[in-house]
């Protein structure tokens, strides 16, 4: 039915596939709205008072919060519902992508190299943390390949991310990119980046707004470890008329020479890495930045709110994002310092939660993100 695509690479859906996918979006809106409303009430009315009696004013650990919630029937029902919704998301979109995969691969191959570039490295080992888990409960995760020149996980992601974000990231799903660009432009008004690098770009949803944000002469590079996501992302960027240089690289060990970029960014990448990897990623960002260049990472981090900390712990365990929990406890100023940035040049700030969708269809929770940024000494 209804081709609601924004670009020529976007996977198709039959009438019934589209109706079922629309249902998944409604279910996700319903499940997450009720999960959050009920668990927020539980935290305030039962769990915080309980924990205060037990351990005084001390901030509860993520584990203590998780265990206290686990005893509550309401929490259990809505947790089972939210987890099942995530499984249904892939079980609904996956078969639709699988049936049209030959056509998607043909379209991707036809668009290959027509704008920007794509460089794959089949010999590159995948990070251990990336191979260990099927992130977001996505069967086969982001690297599954079913055949040669595959784009399956990328094409599936373009559809599932649209449903998962419930419309709040806009039709091009670039809300996170736009949010970080606005923050960078407000904090570093003098920054006029000519070369930009996006780390862990997946299919480039957040990368593409950088192509036009800083003027027509900007050169945008994007790296990810997943070949099928990069193939799809490259074809998608060509289809959308955006020149991006995609390459298969690990953000912990980049192939770019020292001092290559004015701006290095990432969007919701850090929480998919690890305690060791984040330190290497910040070091590499510092190395590939030119003097005066800026590193800025957008991620779901909350230092203060018990509820946000509880929910990161929930997502770590039940949405298969293992590092999202302990990321909350990291000392980002120390990691920036170890990476070579001057302490006075580091920032740790919330962004403003925004809904980039517009219209009545985007009646969904929108979360604020945190930015970890640092400027390399000029």
């Amino acid at each position: 039915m209804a081709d609601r695509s924004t670009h020529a690479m976007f996977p198709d859906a039959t009438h019934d596939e589209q109706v079922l996918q629309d249902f998944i979006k409604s279910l996700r809106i319903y499940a997450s709205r009720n999960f959050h409303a009920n668990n927020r009430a539980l935290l305030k009315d039962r769990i915080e008072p309980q924990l205060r009696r037990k351990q005084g004013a001390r901030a509860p650990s993520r584990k203590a919060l998780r265990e206290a919630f686990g005893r509550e029937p309401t929490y259990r029902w809505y947790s089972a519902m939210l987890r099942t919704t995530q499984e249904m998301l892939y079980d609904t979109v996956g078969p639709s992508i699988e049936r049209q995969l030959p056509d998607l691969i043909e379209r991707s191959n036809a668009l290959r190299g027509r704008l920007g570039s794509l460089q794959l490295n089949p010999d590159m080992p995948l990070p251990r943390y990336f191979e260990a888990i099927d992130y977001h409960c996505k069967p086969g995760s982001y690297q599954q390949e079913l055949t040669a020149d595959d784009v399956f996980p990328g094409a599936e992601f373009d559809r599932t991310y649209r449903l998962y974000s419930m419309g709040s990231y806009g039709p091009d799903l670039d809300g996170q990119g736009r949010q970080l660009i606005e923050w960078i432009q407000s904090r570093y008004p003098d920054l006029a980046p000519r070369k930009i690098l996006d780390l862990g770009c997946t299919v480039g949803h957040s990368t593409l707004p950088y192509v036009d944000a800083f003027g027509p002469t900007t050169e945008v590079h994007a790296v990810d470890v997943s070949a099928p996501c990069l193939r799809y992302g490259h074809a998608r960027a060509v289809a959308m008329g955006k020149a991006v240089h995609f390459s298969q690289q690990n953000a912990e060990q980049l192939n770019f020479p020292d001092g290559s970029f004015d701006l290095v960014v990432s969007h919701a990448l850090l929480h998919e890495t690890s305690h060791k990897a984040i330190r290497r990623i910040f070091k590499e960002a510092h190395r590939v930045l030119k003097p005066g260049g800026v590193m800025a990472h957008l991620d779901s981090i909350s230092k203060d709110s018990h509820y946000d900390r509880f929910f990161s712990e929930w997502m770590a365990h039940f949405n298969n994002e293992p590092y999202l929990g302990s990321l909350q406890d990291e000392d980002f100023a120390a990691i920036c310092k170890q990476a070579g940035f001057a302490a006075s040049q580091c920032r740790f700030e919330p962004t403003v939660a925004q809904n980039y969708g517009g219209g009545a269809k985007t009646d969904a929770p929108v979360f604020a993100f945190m930015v970890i940024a640092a400027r390399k000494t000029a």
Partner: protein
Amino acid sequence: MAKPASKKPASRKNATGPQRPRQRVAKGRRPLFMRDPDVDKLLAMIMAMTGEIALLRGRLDTHERLLAAGKPVTPETIESFLPDAASEAAREAQRQAMLTRVFRILAVAETQPQQPDISKLVDDAIKKSG
């Protein structure tokens, strides 16, 4: 003769050859939340069934909107039907109302701890009305 595609699901990089079936379930044992794991399974079935009802309802809605526009209802017109923003909003409102009805009992259960026992209310009511 071409070799038939392997039935083994693929989860590997640098694949070659004929298309293999996609992996259907995420790695690792599924988390259970309910006291009885069978309740987790039942909930998943009810959610999937609700999706099937939404699918029927959506297909019916397409029929009605085609007919209202004076168009024939054929598999082709159904496939090429494009709902406008108003019909999408109406469908979304219907789906939210349906989910609220299907999962009504969870919202009821949430208000229970504050409520007095029903037998006590009944006894009191009988006593008061003599």
